[in-house]
């Protein structure tokens, strides 16, 4: 009985901490994105609200919350609101299986900094990732607007193509680790003294592209396409409802997929890895905190890389995007999968 209560309390604390971190960080990533975008274009970005615009997300949130809540005529109110929930919940749920660090002990209780270490963690991630397409399709359909519908159809096309690609891309690390649990995959990489990015560079590149496509980042942002489609499926949303979609798509999803990429390819919370040499930890002086710092560092570097790509590249056409997915990336992942499946049992272990 006592064990159950302790487990409940720990889980609740974990849920609150993870939600607070994810949503708070998600809000502040808007500022990071604006700053990065601005500096790439040699502007300073937000400077007025707070020191170098540090309070800008709060001001934006306040503005969005106090705006009028508009609803398009002849739209479907139920689906319109359901789309929001469908967008927000799966994106945040992914963090349930993201391991932030190794197991540690507080007051004699062993705590894994992962909400649920289910043994099908990765399956859960990509199942929840596929749910995003529902939200977008519903948002476009319920808005009763041509722009929104076109945007959502484009996004649905992209997500359907890249969901296949991303699933095949992560097969390689799964075969190497022999498990679907995110926590165990990191453990395996630490035990085997090797990040899987060194063995699976192809899969990593394909994963990065698929991640960009799933989150609607440039060069795959046809569903937003400010120039042609205003902002795609979010056209008819107003106020905070409008704010939620980019928050979910551009920040929370990118964050969760970067975290999964770090777990799969970059060894989770492990320090820098050089093949045949093992792990080198320049942050050893942080002691037990160093794994957490490494994890956060890797995720933020990956996120900054995505931003960097976003503000550099132009946009592909929809046909080019799906063509790349089906004709280039999928064969590459097949080749990668077959090679891994054939060679890994012979050489590995």
């Amino acid at each position, binding site marked *: 009985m006592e064990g159950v209560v302790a487990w409940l309390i720990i889980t609740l604390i974990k849920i609150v901490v993870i939600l607070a971190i994810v949503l708070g960080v998600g809000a502040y990533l808007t500022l990071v994105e604006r700053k990065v975008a*601005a*500096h*790439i*274009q*040699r*502007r*300073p970005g937000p400077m007025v609200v707070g020191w170098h615009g540090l309070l800008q997300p709060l001001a934006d949130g306040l503005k969005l919350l106090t705006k009028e809540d508009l609803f398009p005529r002849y739209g479907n109110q139920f689906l319109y609101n359901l789309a929001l929930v469908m967008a927000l919940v799966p994106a945040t749920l992914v963090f349930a299986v993201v391991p932030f660090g190794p197991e540690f002990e507080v007051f004699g209780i062993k705590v894994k900094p992962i909400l649920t270490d289910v043994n099908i963690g990765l399956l859960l991630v990509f199942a929840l990732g596929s749910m995003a397409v529902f939200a977008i399709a519903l948002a476009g359909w319920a808005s009763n607007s041509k722009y929104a519908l076109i945007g959502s159809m484009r996004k649905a096309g992209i997500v359907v193509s890249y969901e296949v690609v991303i699933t095949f891309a992560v097969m390689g690390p799964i075969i190497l680790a022999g498990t679907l649990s995110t926590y165990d995959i990191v453990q395996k990489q630490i035990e085997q003294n090797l990040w899987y990015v060194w063995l699976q560079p192809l899969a990593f590149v394909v994963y990065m592209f698929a991640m960009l496509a799933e989150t609607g980042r440039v060069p795959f942002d046809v569903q937003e396409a400010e120039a042609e489609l205003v902002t795609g499926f979010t056209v008819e949303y107003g106020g905070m409802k409008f704010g939620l979609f980019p928050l979910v798509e551009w920040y929370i999803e990118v964050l969760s997929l970067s975290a999964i990429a770090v777990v799969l390819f970059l060894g989770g919370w492990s320090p820098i890895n050089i093949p045949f040499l093992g792990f080198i930890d320049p942050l050893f002086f942080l002691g037990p905190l160093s794994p957490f710092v490494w994890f956060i560092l890797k995720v933020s570097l990956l996120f900054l890389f995505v931003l*960097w*790509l976003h503000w*550099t590249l132009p946009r592909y056409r929809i046909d080019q995007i799906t063509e790349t997915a089906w004709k280039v990336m999928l064969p590459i992942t097949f080749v990668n999968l077959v090679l891994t499946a054939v060679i890994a049992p012979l050489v590995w272990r």
Partner: protein
Amino acid sequence: MVKRVFERPLSWIERIFFLDFIRGLSVTIRHAFRKTITTHYPYEKLTPPKRFRGFFGHKVVDGKEPQPAFDEWVERFKIQVEPGKSRCVVCMLCKRACPVPQLFEIEGEKLPDGKRRVSVFNMNLMLCTFCGFCVDACPVDCLFQSDIHETASYTRRDSVLDLQTLERIGRDWQRRREEEPDRIWIDDYQRQRLWHENDLKLPEVER
């Protein structure tokens, strides 16, 4: 001769290692760490070049009028020349030149000693296109366009410049920039400091 330019197809090396991506990324990262070029507008202001077409003003009589044109016009119209007042000789050439003439309201008055001077000179800038034809037409270098460009106001009344306002803008201009040689924008090393010397207290200009 038509020069035909074709897009060079990417080589396989470029395709495999994303070399064109890397080239683009290196450009953006180099720019990201450079100094920004923004003017923080309400806090920092650039002074426009001298030939900027901003608010209008009347230059005042200060002994630097274009001669002999000024003396000829004064003689013809028997204008009372008073230092520190507008150079306007009420010739109406500005109104003639204007594409929207009704924006000018110009009247002269006759003084008891038989001389004349300008009494009303209103410009309704709601109608103005800032084309500068009136400035070109002015024979005595009286009407001119200043560097004042923050022309927003709360009422329509404020957008009508009357004679006093025009003279004030003119006096301010003659104090600040009359001596300055014409420069093109990029050579104007003084533009950073010049704006803050503006001590005009117009309702439109005040912040």
